[in-house]
């Protein structure tokens, strides 16, 4: 099986404190990995490095076969756009655009035709169960509905890896469970690997493997499936 993501001895320090002290992690294609640990352990920083949002100060990140350190900023952006999907705690949809346009946005940025992009967006909104609200603005819908649209936006480009950073953090436990079921099913459906950042054991249990961080290093790695 080819690796969707390969992180080797990545180090990252913010201006004040060190977040990652040499973390290595491989994710197979289609695999679901939970990155867990207490708050401040570096989980989000790891995901931001893996997604090519932050440039690690040491170590390498290989995403869908491309070593991010060897790419120019423009190439990195392109890899990120086509190979990475991201779901954040609050959905982070553009408040001025309808759900459909929000989901179509990554495709449009990639240069797809508007009509085709919107069709694809509608298709994904149907799969995540909010197609009837495709013309609504994020502010007109619940947090759970917004998160569903965020899942659609993350998967619409057919990425190799979807990163979900505390995706259920703003939802109650039942809505959070439904969200996780949807996220797992959607990632399988879209053939994407899924990296879930969470501090919640019940959410981590959806993964095939748990990678636990503590103080910027991998404390342990266990297989759950």
């Amino acid at each position, binding site marked *: 099986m080819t690796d969707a993501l390969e992180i080797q001895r990545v180090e990252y320090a913010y201006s004040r404190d060190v977040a990652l002290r040499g973390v290595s992690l491989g994710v197979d294609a289609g695999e679901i990995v939970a990155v867990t640990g207490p708050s401040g352990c570096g989980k989000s920083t790891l995901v*931001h490095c893996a*997604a090519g*949002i*932050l440039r690690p100060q040491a170590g390498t990140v290989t995403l869908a076969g491309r070593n991010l350190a060897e790419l120019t900023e423009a190439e990195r952006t392109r890899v990120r756009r086509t190979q*990475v999907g991201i779901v954040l*705690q609050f959905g*982070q949809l553009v408040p001025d*655009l309808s759900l459909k*346009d929000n989901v179509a*946005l990554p495709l449009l940025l990639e240069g797809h035709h508007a009509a085709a992009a919107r069709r694809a967006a509608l298709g994904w909104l149907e799969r995540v169960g909010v197609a009837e609200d495709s013309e609504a603005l994020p502010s007109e819908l619940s947090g759970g509905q917004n998160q569903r649209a965020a899942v659609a936006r993350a998967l619409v480009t057919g990425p190799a890896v979807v990163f979900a950073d505390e995706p259920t953090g703003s939802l109650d436990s039942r809505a959070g469970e439904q969200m996780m079921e949807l996220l797992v099913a959607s990632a399988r459906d879209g053939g994407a690997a899924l990296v879930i950042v969470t501090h919640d054991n019940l959410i981590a249990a959806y993964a095939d493997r748990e990678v636990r961080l503590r103080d910027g290093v991998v404390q342990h790695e266990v297989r759950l499936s």
Partner: protein
Amino acid sequence: MTVTTLITLARPKSSTDRRRSTLLVAAVAVAGVFLLVGQRIVRVGSLDSATYSSYLTEDGLRPGVVTAAVLLAAAACALAFQALRLGTAARDRRLAALRLAGATPSQVRLIGAADAGTSGLLGGVLAGPLYFAVAAVVQSLPQVGRVLPSPAVGDLAAWPVLAVVLALVAAGAGGLLRRQLSTEPKSEPDRAAWQGRYLTIGAVGAALVALSLMPLSPILIFVQAAGVLLAASGFAPVAVAAYARRLERSGDPVRMLAGGRLLHTSRSIGRMLALLVVCGGVVGAVLAIGRDRQLSERELAASGDFIYTGLGFVALLSLFAAFAAGVAMLAGAADDLLDQRSQLAALNVFGMGASQVLRSVRIQLTGPAAVAVGAGVLIGGGLVCSLQNRVDPPADTSSVVVFVLIAAAVVGVLAGGVAALASGVLSGQVRDAVDPANLRTT
């Protein structure tokens, strides 16, 4: 609630808050200067026509100067009002926190009033020295440019009165704005309902202008100006919304982002654009009159200085008003960037970086500003042409009409260029907004 508590709660909390209150103080101060100028001219007796511009010395022209001062004060007030509305999202959250902490709606209103009132008072206090400085500068101009008499003792009395009045008005506006925020959250208003109201306002304005154009119409020039202002205030937001929807449908992500933002700020942007239309109108009228005057050499020889000074002042003043509108629009855009930073940071992950976001901001500002100013020039010039046609029917105004058309295009493009350059001011805010660190904020 004690006064100390009130002041602590009302004081600006963040750097954005401080920027906002600086803008508010500056706008109130400028409004105060123009009001002081107005009251000085109203109270002036007879003046030596050798020392002062004939705009001051002739009784018939003086009310015009006062009106101009009041209109400019109004433009500065519009800017101040816009400044008061900035930072809404952040303030909403703080107010909600205050309400949770047990503040009653009237206390929240009081905090809003205190916040705006102190800025108003500060602006009013600053207006005094500013006014005396301006008056001194005007005194140093040659006779044709002296449109303001030297300060009088009465000004020293008018200044504190004005400061208090400005503080009270600002406090009233601040309390009023918070009232909407402190009431129960309302259900999402119908997105299209406001357009009907605005179209009606626009139609009333257009009707006034049309009436003023009828032969032997009793409608005065000021009514005509009011008509233009009403029509612009009514139609501009609707036009902005229509343009925004077209951008949204375009399928180009940068234009869609611009369209979405425009659609949801079309009313406040529309208000600023209406101001730009009026400014353009003044410029158009000035250009048309100037062009027409060039035709009659005889008149020019007789009173060229007088006419050109007047036209120059009017043009300068309309530039100031346009500047105020532009600042308000930029401040609003900066505010939006701050509000939406976590969403913009998320878009950055999908490959919409700082340069594209800046381009989208530029699209939001450039097109509407260019069209508003161009349309204004066309309206102002057109009205002058029609007036001249009426006064002197056999005169051939076709060359002026062509001139106005060209002027509208040139000034419009120029305004767009300025707007495009000015939006570059926001590049720092854009970079801050797309920073991945914002992914963690709510």
